């Protein structure tokens, strides 16, 4: 079975002034379909860099990344945007909803960039996704009229709606209280059981341990190298 995410000897160096910061230094790993993994590490470990690379927001200095079989090496911004749109569903710590449009319109937004989806289908799919996260009755509300947990549910609906290969969540509970966090993690669990592949990036042990597999990263390297 081909892995959904295949990383081989990934290095990502940043030039800061005269010195080179090695954010990632030879990381290799795989994530298979229907997995529910946590990418864990303390701050500065390189987990955000890893998430950016998996999410095709960034490209590695060296190494190879395949997303659902597509080699992202040498892709231009337009191709990367295409991969992000079709293959990746992002969930962020700060929700990152567009503030001036309703929950429903937020969920519709990624489908605008897909092309070939009629406006009625976009709406239908968005309503369906919001229904799935339990927010159908609040879909006309603006983000600032929603609680933190509700905002994150909208963000999850937005990630789901394009039927991505993988949902990539960066500290999805970082801005939520414990009770809401549990509810969100429960939602992720259910979504995984429904067949969605989910990767959660977190520094929180409890959150990480509630996922099925943990990939631990420290100082730009995996603690236990994944067997390729």
């Amino acid at each position, binding site marked *: 079975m081909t892995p959904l995410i295949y990383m081989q000897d990934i290095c990502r160096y940043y030039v800061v002034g005269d010195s080179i910061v090695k954010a990632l230094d030879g990381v290799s790993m795989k994530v298979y379909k229907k997995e529910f993994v946590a990418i864990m590490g303390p701050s500065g470990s390189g987990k955000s860099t890893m998430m950016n690379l998996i999410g095709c927001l960034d490209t590695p200095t060296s190494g190879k990344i395949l997303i659902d079989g597509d080699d992202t090496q040498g892709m231009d911004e337009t191709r990367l945007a*295409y991969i992000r749109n079709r293959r990746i569903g992002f969930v962020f710590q700060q929700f990152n909803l567009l503030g001036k449009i309703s929950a429903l319109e937020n969920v519709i937004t990624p489908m605008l960039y897909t092309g070939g989806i009629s406006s009625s289908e976009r709406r239908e799919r968005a309503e369906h996704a919001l229904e799935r996260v339990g927010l159908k009755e609040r879909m006309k509300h603006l983000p600032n009229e929603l609680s933190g947990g509700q905002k994150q549910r909208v963000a999850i609906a937005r990630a789901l709606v394009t039927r991505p290969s993988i949902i990539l969540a960066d500290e999805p509970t970082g801005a939520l209280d414990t009770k809401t966090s549990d509810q969100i993690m429960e939602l992720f669990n259910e979504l995984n059981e429904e067949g969605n592949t989910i990767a959660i990036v977190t520094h929180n042990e409890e959150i990480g341990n509630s996922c099925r597999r943990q990939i631990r990263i420290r100082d730009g390297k995996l603690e236990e190298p994944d067997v390729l």
Partner: protein
Amino acid sequence: MFFENVKLALKAMKGNKMRTILSLLGIIIGVASVITILNLGNSATGSITSSISSSGYNILYLSPGSGSRNTDTFNELFGQTLTENFEEIDTVMPTVSSSTRIRQGNEITSCQIMGVETDYGNNMDCELEYGSWFDYTDNIFKRQVVVLGSEIAESLFPACDAVGNYVSIFRNQSKRYLVVGVLAEKDSTLSTSYNTSIFIPYNTFAQRFQNVSSVGTYVITVAEGYDPVKVTDKLTEYLDNLVGSDNYSLMSSASLAEMASSITGTLSSFLAAIGGISLLVGGIGIMNIMLVSVAERTKEIGIRKALGAPPRIIKGQFLTEAITLTLTGGILGIGLGIGISRIVTGMAGWTFSVSLSACILSVAFSMAIGVFFGLYPAAKAAKMDPIESLNYE
């Protein structure tokens, strides 16, 4: 996608009403001034042309200069020479004129006096209020008869009919003339203001009034079916060869109308250029506000990029916003411009006319400004790094 972008743009504009209006002010004023200027130019040209052509579009005025050669050429028979040589010329009437004073009882007024031939009144479409025009015998026998302009008649004979009464016309000494007709009110032409003129037979004028050595002005009517402007050109060529260009002047309503419209045309393109400069300044204002908007919405751009918006679509979004912005400005400007020109033409008493081409031009130009000045901010937005813009607070 385009429709969504327009919706987004309108939403952004609504969200920042004050800022939108202020940043559009340059475009609005620019477009409004261009529209006003072009509309006024149009209306003014229309009014000038129509007032000139109402005074006889097919009539040319040939005035000899005072050179000695002219006495030989421009005699009373010269008219005949012209009609024989040019099939385009219908009639040629020699006229002479001077200024004088006229008295009746205690009333004295100054006026222009013209010596004309009998058929002048008929050829120039002069309608008579009272009486009749003098006839051929009056001219041949140099009788002292006069036709009065309407204002002159009004001031000399406020109470009674002028026809049949005598008036005194001064020239060194006063002579008594019998009033035979009074003109109806008539608009002035290039050479004659009919209402304040009096008309006597040409020969009477020549003998009694002034020692006429040459004709004052030949009034030439162009035959039907010929373009007065072309006839003027042809006649000019002929006269240049005959007496030289310095020794006569040839005027026509047609060529004057052409000149007037070319002057107002030049003037309005000059003023439109100034309007264009204010549009340019307005465009820079748009660019400024678009740059602010792009910077302000860095986070939004990051989110959209994360959701899979390719650079082309981000660029399109901001470009559409800039165009929507300038187009709104353009339309508001057209409305304002039409309003202003409507008021001004109303005050000036011109006929109001909207220059459609100016409206289309302004819309197109304001859109072009949107594209031109929106391109750089839009390209800047499209080129933003997704991670940096996502993390932007």
